[in-house]
């Protein structure tokens, strides 16, 4: 059973892809700040004529970044892809923006954080390490600041550094929102860490660090503007107003939040109900209709009922089974079901443990199927028991019936082939089989296959990825 995690993994990956595919359409909140970015870019480059073209493209092609193509985060490459202009032009426009007040750094950093990585750039290793990115950023920032100061365009350190700090803080606070919409969130962390230096590695939650940075930046700004002295009065005024507003709107907000969550829960319930209804319609209702039609044939009705029962059980209790590929358990279950359907004899199935199928186990399943078919066809028993135990080093299966039995020493010729396909097949795969039977005492077929050592390692399974 633990082993089933292995085939489960691809399905989890599939889910991620699904989320990625749907994220651009559904992620409204993080999309907005991201879309805000190209506007200054287009206005700064003075190419207003490009804007409509960009809009038309974004209808089917969202703004993304291409880390494998860009110098830093691939934002420029993304903008150039979006607008259909050469990437150099975009970079030049960005450089102009940087020169026009330094706020371009903040904009670029924001875009880096918030834009999703283009799927085609996903997973492409960048030659640069995160620390090199950080070095590049710091050098560019210092160069720009120095250039601005020489040009006399700068507002002054007292304004720029608080702004940079506030930007970093805002990135930290907003990041979880963007991350929740984008599957590449994990990928974006390393450059951010590099940006932050040691504070990125602290145990403090990012939003807290972000809020602290923003608060510090605000205080620094206020101090620079000389209003810190009046801050006390201003704060108390703000606090009083905020309290008033809170008291006025509080109950309404609470009610709104509650009704929203109610609505959500109701929607989820409705969705589940629809799923169940759809399943019942496709399975149980269909079978009931068939049964009504075939009411004259009790054997067929019994078969239909049995098959439906098995399917419903699987749906109710074994939902994970259907997702993953071929485990021994699944294959044995399928073989039992087929024999039941073909010969109308119920098979009682008990399986302990599970493992992925290899050629040896495949042979065991085939032999078991053959033995089941034999029992169902010749034994004349009311039911057949199949017990399989899948251990770490060997797999055993027992097919037992309480039918007429026979003398194994005097196997009739017409059963020879069948005997070969059970005994011979297992021997070819390094296992063995034994048939115990006597006239009137039923039959038991014992099938044993040793498992390769290679599979042992897979028996121990790390905990399921955190969910």
């Amino acid at each position, binding site marked *: *059973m*633990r082993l*089933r*995690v292995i085939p*489960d993994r691809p399905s989890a990956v599939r889910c991620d892809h699904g989320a990625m595919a749907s994220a651009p359409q559904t992620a409204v909140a993080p999309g907005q700040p991201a879309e805000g970015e190209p506007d200054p870019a287009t206005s700064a480059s003075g190419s207003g004529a490009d804007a409509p073209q960009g809009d038309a493209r974004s209808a089917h092609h969202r703004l993304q970044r291409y880390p494998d193509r860009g110098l830093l985060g691939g934002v420029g490459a993304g903008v150039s892809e979006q607008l259909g202009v050469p990437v150099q032009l975009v970079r030049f426009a960005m450089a102009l923006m940087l020169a026009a007040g330094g706020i371009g750094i903040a904009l670029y950093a924001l875009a880096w954080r918030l834009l999703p990585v283009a799927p085609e750039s996903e997973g492409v290793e960048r030659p640069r390490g995160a620390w090199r990115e950080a070095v590049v950023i710091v050098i560019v920032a210092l160069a720009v600041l120095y250039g601005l100061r020489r040009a006399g365009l700068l507002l002054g350190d007292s304004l720029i550094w608080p702004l940079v700090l506030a930007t970093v803080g805002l990135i930290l606070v907003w990041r979880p929102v963007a991350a929740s919409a984008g599957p590449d969130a994990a990928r974006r962390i390393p450059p951010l860490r590099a940006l932050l230096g040691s504070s990125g590695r602290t145990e403090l939650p990012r939003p807290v660090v972000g809020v602290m940075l923003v608060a510090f930046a605000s205080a620094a700004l206020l101090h620079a503007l000389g209003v810190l002295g009046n801050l006390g009065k201003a704060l108390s005024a703000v606090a009083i107003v905020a309290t008033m507003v809170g008291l006025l709107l509080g109950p309404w907000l609470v009610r709104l939040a509650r009704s929203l969550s109610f609505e959500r829960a109701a929607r989820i319930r409705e969705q589940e109900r629809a799923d169940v209804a759809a399943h019942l319609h496709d399975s149980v209702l269909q079978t009931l209709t068939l049964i009504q039609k075939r009411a004259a044939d009790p054997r067929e009705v019994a078969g239909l009922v049995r098959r439906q029962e098995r399917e419903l*059980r699987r749906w*109710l*209790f*074994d*939902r*994970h*089974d259907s997702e993953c590929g071929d485990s021994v358990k699944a294959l044995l279950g399928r073989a039992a079901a087929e024999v039941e359907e073909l010969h109308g004899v119920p098979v*009682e199935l*008990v*399986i*302990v*443990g599970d493992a992925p199928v290899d050629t040896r186990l495949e042979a065991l399943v085939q032999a078991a199927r053959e033995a089941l078919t034999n029992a169902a066809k010749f034994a004349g028993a009311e039911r057949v*028991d199949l*017990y399989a*135990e899948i*251990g770490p080093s060997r797999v055993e299966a*027992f097919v*037992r019936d*309480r039918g007429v039995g026979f003398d194994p020493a005097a196997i009739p010729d017409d059963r020879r082939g069948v005997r070969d396909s059970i005994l011979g097949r297992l021997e070819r795969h390094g296992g063995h089989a034994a048939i115990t039977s006597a006239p009137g005492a039923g039959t*038991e077929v014992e099938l044993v296959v040793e498992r390769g050592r290679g599979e042992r390692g897979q028996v121990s*399974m790390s905990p*399921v990825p955190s969910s």
Partner: protein
Amino acid sequence: MSDEREGARVRVVIVDDHDLFRAGVRAELGGRVDVVGQAGGVADALETIRASPPDVVLLDVHMPDGGGVEVIRRICGELPDVRFLALSVSDAAEDVIAVIRAGARGYVTKSISGAELADAVARVAEGDAVFSPRLAGFVLDAFADVVPDAADPELDQLTPREREVLRHIARGYMYKEIAQRLEISVKTVEAHVGAVLRKLQLSSRHELSRWALQRRLVSLD
């Protein structure tokens, strides 16, 4: 059968939330046992059992208000002589193991024949354990993963003999056939099954719940 085991007929209460099913079980059991009461819910069941304590309660695992586990928990301390046999369509190992751990002396599936059910009821009435092939499979599975508790390794593992007996049950053998094959007496087979039942009920909750958790996280049986 019951008559050869005991002079008086076994008194049985059937607890199941489906009327149709109760009627069906009653009809299947026929005259083999004495059905002294029926109940369709937990509260109902407690009342019926207290009013006239039966030998055996045939208990559905799945019911509203806590299911069979709740009934066993409430009655166990009060009326220790009442024994429980779980009867279920459930294929979920957790549910079955849970009801056994609560104190049921056996588990059979609802597809069991009337004669077999009567036999199982008689066994349980005598204080023996009744393991269906499926339950034996669940138990083997449960103990396959258990890492012995350092404090009491005996309790957390099955002996090779117990394992052998369980495997035979899972393969579809009756107690008598198992006794023959292993060259022991039927009483010894019963003793082994009883020991397994006790281990199942007493073994470290931590280890078995770890097992259940693992199963639920990854897959339901």
